[in-house]
């Protein structure tokens, strides 16, 4: 079993992180810039030191073990390829430093090159390669070291949109081929959702929530996680508790709950309603739920879907995602509805409530 | 262990440099100040503490004042040629008045004197300045201006100026090249904007080029003044400070006191004065830079 447990805090940057990674898991650390995800990765790698806490790999304490001896390999955001060395030389650096024999080096480099389809490029210099090719060389360098864990530091951030998609697919394929444990850092929630077995959402040095992609999407623990995953972003409307089964919205209308609320909330308490754009329906309105009326401010027709930005009476805005055939125009009045089960309620502290449905 | 080795290694990288600097650069500077407080010669082993006595001697010595004045003259002329004139030349070349090949040619030829060793320059120009047979005098004779002829390096009135001008000959082209680089850093579109507004070349020079290289101008001026106060080699080669101390500068005065007249403490005092002057100039530069940001 290969597991990593960390509990540590670095003053100001990371606070009290506890995380366990299972063998062969693909874990994604995701969050906005400055949330500490890269720092965490670098601490695991051994490039930075932790102020407190412990790092274990396979049960062994790694705090004082130098980076090269931890059995890890890292793929950097800007690939960090040595500009004056060929692809083959770049990939074999670690082995050459360790003093491996030439034939062993050649075999390992060859194997990695085959997996990544780099055989034709082995004698080129980095400046002669495209972005995607350089990316693969960086990965190749990691593979050659035969690590227990791969660390990726925002590897796709430097690529343009089209390339990013392509590389994402390749990474997914690679992941299956290599069958290794991977820790991946990104700020892009799409990458997180598509690649991860387990997502760790971070913010301001803390872990907000850990879980599988769908778990985090459907049952976010707090406002931050809810707002971070999903595009377009989840709508947040302000409401007030009217009774144990009714929430009144500032934007007009009431939410009728099928079941009752958690008892910790009293009448008059402010709550936030989280509604994903795609669960809002035009046309037939659900019985138990909410209906809201607003004026369409902007209508974006994307062909396969239409995004409508509704302006509500209290100035708030609602984003609605519906199918491409919708016939709404800017300036139209529109009523949308959402079933009660599809609404996530957040208490005044930002934490999600679990209404009994 | 690896951790310990890691901690020591960076220091090993800087150690040789630091040691060399301490022993051979900083050390002597300090020693110099100390020596200046004593009167002694390298022959006899006894030292006599005289406090500021050497400095008193210094300020009372007319040769010192001649030297200082000469340095100031040097500085003023150098700034005129190596900063003002050089800037003008650079602006002309950068403004594209001549085609690129001609520009390159002029830059190279004017730059040439600066790569020559000072001894060659000094000896060569000594010969050019030779009375009657030297190039200068020959030129004067053939154009009928013999009355202007002097024993350039042998007359008290002309010795310093002759040396100063040789310095300008050597370095003006170099400074011009430096200014060319500084001017090139001014964005092209600013020039084009002024052109569209119909500004003349002269106006452009005054309002765009000169302010645009202000920082460089300041630095170059300071460096030139620095050099003018430290100057030693060209003077020593051409006149050794003569005739009769007419072209003496602080540098030659110091050297002679230490190695010819053997009054080491006094020489150290001169050196300290030079150092103090250069520091002040540097300080003024910093202040000016800070004010202009």
């Amino acid at each position, binding site marked *: 079993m290969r597991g990593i447990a960390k509990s540590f805090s670095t003053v100001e940057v990371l606070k009290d992180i506890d995380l366990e990674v299972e063998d062969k898991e693909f874990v994604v650390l995701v969050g906005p810039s400055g949330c500490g995800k890269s720092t965490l990765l670098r601490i695991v790698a051994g490039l930075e030191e932790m102020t407190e806490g412990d790092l274990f790999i396979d049960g062994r304490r790694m705090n004082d073990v130098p*980076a090269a001896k931890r059995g890890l390999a890292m793929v950097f955001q800007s690939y960090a390829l040595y500009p004056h060395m060929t692809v083959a030389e770049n990939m074999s650096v670690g082995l050459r430093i360790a003093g491996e024999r030439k034939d062993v080096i050649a075999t390992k480099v060859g194997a990695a090159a085959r997996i990544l389809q780099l055989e034709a490029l082995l004698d080129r210099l980095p400046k002669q390669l495209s972005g995607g090719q350089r990316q693969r060389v960086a990965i190749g360098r990691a593979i050659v070291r035969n690590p227990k864990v791969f660390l990726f530091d925002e590897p796709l951030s430097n690529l343009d949109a089209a390339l990013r998609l392509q590389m994402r697919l390749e990474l997914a394929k690679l992941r299956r081929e290599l069958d290794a444990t991977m820790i991946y850092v990104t700020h892009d929630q799409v990458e997180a959702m598509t690649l991860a077995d387990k997502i760790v959402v971070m913010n301001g040095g803390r872990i907000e929530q850990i879980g599988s992609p769908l778990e985090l999407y459907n049952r976010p623990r707090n406002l931050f996680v809810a707002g971070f995953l999903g595009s377009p972003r989840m709508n947040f409307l302000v409401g007030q508790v009217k009774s144990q089964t009714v929430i009144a919205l500032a934007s007009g209308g009431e939410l009728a709950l099928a079941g009752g609320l958690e008892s910790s909330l009293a009448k008059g308490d402010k709550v936030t309603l989280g509604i994903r754009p795609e669960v809002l329906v035009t046309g037939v309105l659900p019985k138990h739920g909410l209906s809201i009326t607003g004026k369409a401010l902007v209508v974006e027709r994307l062909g396969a879907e239409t995004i409508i930005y509704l302006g509500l009476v209290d100035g708030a805005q609602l984003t609605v995602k519906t199918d491409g055939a919708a016939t709404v125009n800017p300036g139209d009045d529109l009523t949308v509805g959402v079933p009660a089960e599809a609404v996530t309620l957040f208490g005044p502290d930002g934490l999600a409530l679990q209404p009994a449905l | 262990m690896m951790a310990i080795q890691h901690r020591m290694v960076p220091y090993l990288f800087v150690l040789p440099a630091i040691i060399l600097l301490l022993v051979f650069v900083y050390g002597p500077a300090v020693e110099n100040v100390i020596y200046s407080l004593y009167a002694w010669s390298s022959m006899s082993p006894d030292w006599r503490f005289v406090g500021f006595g050497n400095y008193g001697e210094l300020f009372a010595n007319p040769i010192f004042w001649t030297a200082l004045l000469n340095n100031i003259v040097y500085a003023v002329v150098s700034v005129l040629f190596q900063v003002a004139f050089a800037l003008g030349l650079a602006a002309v070349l950068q403004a594209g008045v001549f085609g690129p090949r001609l520009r390159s040619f002029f830059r190279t030829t004017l730059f040439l004197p600066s790569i020559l*060793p000072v*001894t060659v320059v000094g000896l060569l120009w000594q010969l050019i300045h030779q009375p009657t047979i030297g190039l200068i005098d020959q030129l004067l004779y053939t154009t009928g201006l013999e009355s202007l002829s002097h024993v350039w390096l042998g007359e008290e009135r002309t010795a310093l100026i002759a040396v100063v001008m040789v310095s300008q000959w050597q370095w003006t082209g170099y400074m011009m090249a430096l200014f060319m680089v500084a001017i090139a850093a001014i964005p092209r579109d600013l020039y084009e904007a002024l052109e569209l507004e119909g500004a003349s070349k002269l106006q452009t020079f005054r309002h765009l080029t000169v302010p645009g290289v202000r920082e460089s101008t300041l630095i170059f001026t300071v460096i030139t003044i620095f050099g003018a106060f430290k100057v030693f080699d060209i003077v020593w080669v051409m006149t050794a400070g003569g005739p009769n101390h007419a072209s003496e500068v602080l540098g030659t005065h110091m050297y002679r006191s230490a*190695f010819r007249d053997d009054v080491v403490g006094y020489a150290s005092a001169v050196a300290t004065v030079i150092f103090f002057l250069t520091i002040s100039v540097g300080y003024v530069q910093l202040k000016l830079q800070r004010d202009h940001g």
Partner: protein
Amino acid sequence: MTVAAKSRGGLTPAHAALLILFWLLAGASVYPLFWLFMSSLKSSPEMFGSTWALPEEWRWSNYAAAWEAGISQYLVSSVIVTVLSTILVVFLSAAAAFALVVLKFRGKTPIYAAILGGLILPPEVALFPLFKTLNTLGIYNTYLALIIPYVAFGIPFTTFLIRAYMVTIPAELNEASIMDGAGPVWTFFHVHLPLCRPILASAALIEAMRVWNEFIFALTFVESESVKTITIGMMSFANALRGDWAVLMAGLAISIIPILITFLIMQRQFIGGLTQGAIK
């Protein structure tokens, strides 16, 4: 580069005046050297007798005479001192720059300040104390007496230059090498030094120029003919040859031919490197 010149018509008077000015300046810059070379091929009386004319016969023997009279010895000394000083300065400065830019350790700022501080100390001021120290160390009048002070005084500027270039090397390269198991020494020799080649070349050029032409230290710290560099050797050479002007010219010519040739071949790098360094 240059701003595009518009009018392609005839020469304006201002234009013409400037052209004349520059040709005069160029001539003034180059003619003395031309005269030097021409004179070196004349006989001594001819040199001043028919100054402006071309040599009657081209007396290459002057050069041989100059060579025998000791120029060769001075050249050798200069080459040894310059090459050794340059190599040492560049290497030590690169090492210091590397530590300052890449490695982590306490006291970086004071150490860097100490290195830069050397820039404001003029060598002339340190002349006599250094003279004493070199004597005490017993290396006066040897090549070391020149090499060591040259290296010491060359470190501040060279370190500054190299450091400015090294900061442009991405830090990730160093991290990648750490992950690969490399220590700082390996990274220095295999990553940073190769990548710094351009600036190392510029720095070496600047240093070599400075050392080759250096005067006051060369004057004070060595005195034997066998150790003198060419810059100083020229003086005693000139003294010894009082009267035999043409041979003196030949000697001067020999001493500057290497520099001239290098300059003319590598004009761009030369001017670029020297001006770049000074600007920084």
